[in-house]
């Protein structure tokens, strides 16, 4: 009888597990930082704190770029195999 470890491609399965964790949780976290940047930046602008507002909006822009980059990367990886 063939051992299960030989039947299942353990490396493929582990790749799926860590990729899903990294992508799923990573995108959730990074997008949350974009929302923090947007919300805090809006508050700071309302309170006339220009420097803080710029910093928060930069955080938002960087986070959104990272999320979009992750999506594009995922599509490239899917099409490249």
């Amino acid at each position, binding site marked *: 009888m*063939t051992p*299960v470890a*030989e*039947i*299942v*491609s353990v490396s*493929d*399965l582990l*790749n*799926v*597990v860590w*990729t*899903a*964790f990294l*992508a*799923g*949780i990573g*995108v*959730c*976290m990074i*997008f*949350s*930082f*974009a*929302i*923090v940047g*947007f*919300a*805090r930046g*809006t508050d700071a602008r309302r309170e006339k704190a220009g420097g803080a507002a710029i910093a928060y909006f930069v955080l938002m822009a960087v986070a959104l770029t990272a*999320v*979009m980059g992750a*999506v594009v990367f*995922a*599509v490239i*990886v*899917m*099409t490249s*195999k």
Partner: protein
Amino acid sequence: MDSDVILIIVVATALAFDFTNGFHDTANVVATSISTRAMAPRIAVGYAALLNFLGAFLSLEVAATIANGIVDADLITPLIVFAGLIGAIAWNLITWYFGLPSSSSHALIGGVVGATLAAAGPDAIISDGLLGKVVIPALVAPTLAFCVAGLGILLVYRIVGRLHPGPVTRGFKAGQVISGGLLALAHGTNDAQKTMGIITLALISSGHLGTGADPPLWVIASAASAIALGTYFGGWRIIKTMGSRIIKMDAAQGFAAQGSGAAVILAATHAGFPLSTTHTISGAVMGAGAAKRFSAVRWGVAGNIVVAWILTLPAAAAIGALTYGITRIFGEGAMGPIVVSSVLIALIGWTFARRLRQGSPITAAEGA
């Protein structure tokens, strides 16, 4: 001549199966975006249909698994593929009628395996492929989606927890345009490839393609179109019947569930695992729900999914085997598939009419 007729019937049946797959699954793909009001229903359905179509062109790994990794393509005939498809469609119809959350993907694989067992015996089944590429990933994927979505939403609440709810909700609603699109793309790439794989298997078995061949472009384009059209037309029915059947969740949970579900499906597709997208999305939705409030999850649906897991492969296999036996009564020509298809079409019409009179039992956790 007869073999060409059988092949045409197989291709038409496979595309019809693909259409019903999209039709069945629209709820899973768009429900979260619509229930959190991230997107208007019309836009959500059109957007999902378009991304389902595009997703089908992304990868061929799952199609290769279906065509060459589960049954020995050299021992398969178009009649076996036909019987397998009928097994899957019939099982989907039965579970739809009784409101069980079945997986079209498992039904398709079960049907083909059953018909192959009946026609060519156990030697024609690649049992390592069936266990390693289908059964074990089918168990892992929903659990993984549950954990990723659960952990994801906990981190999201930790990061945005002290902010005013207004901008957070608006932000995550905007984010759902991305996560919902990714989920539709992921659904298209995994589910459309199953039909591509089945048609490719039929083309290999009829001698139109060599063993190990990839699906031709017309197969990819027709499978992509069938699932996209199914998604589009299924959506209008869902919009009419949505009501209270959709799980209520906030925009952050919707984002986490869609993003996690898409991540699991895309990663599995890349590895060539033909998953049940419904079970994976349901796992993610339950994970996002359970992390906020354990009792918010409809654990009864989870129980039904487990029952469906256990039943679908053997039941579809039994129907596939029975269909092969019935088809063979009429010989190896086209008469068997013509008679069986005609009976099935009549049965589908009767079942739909009866079910529509009684009210649809379809929930967001149903389909492939």
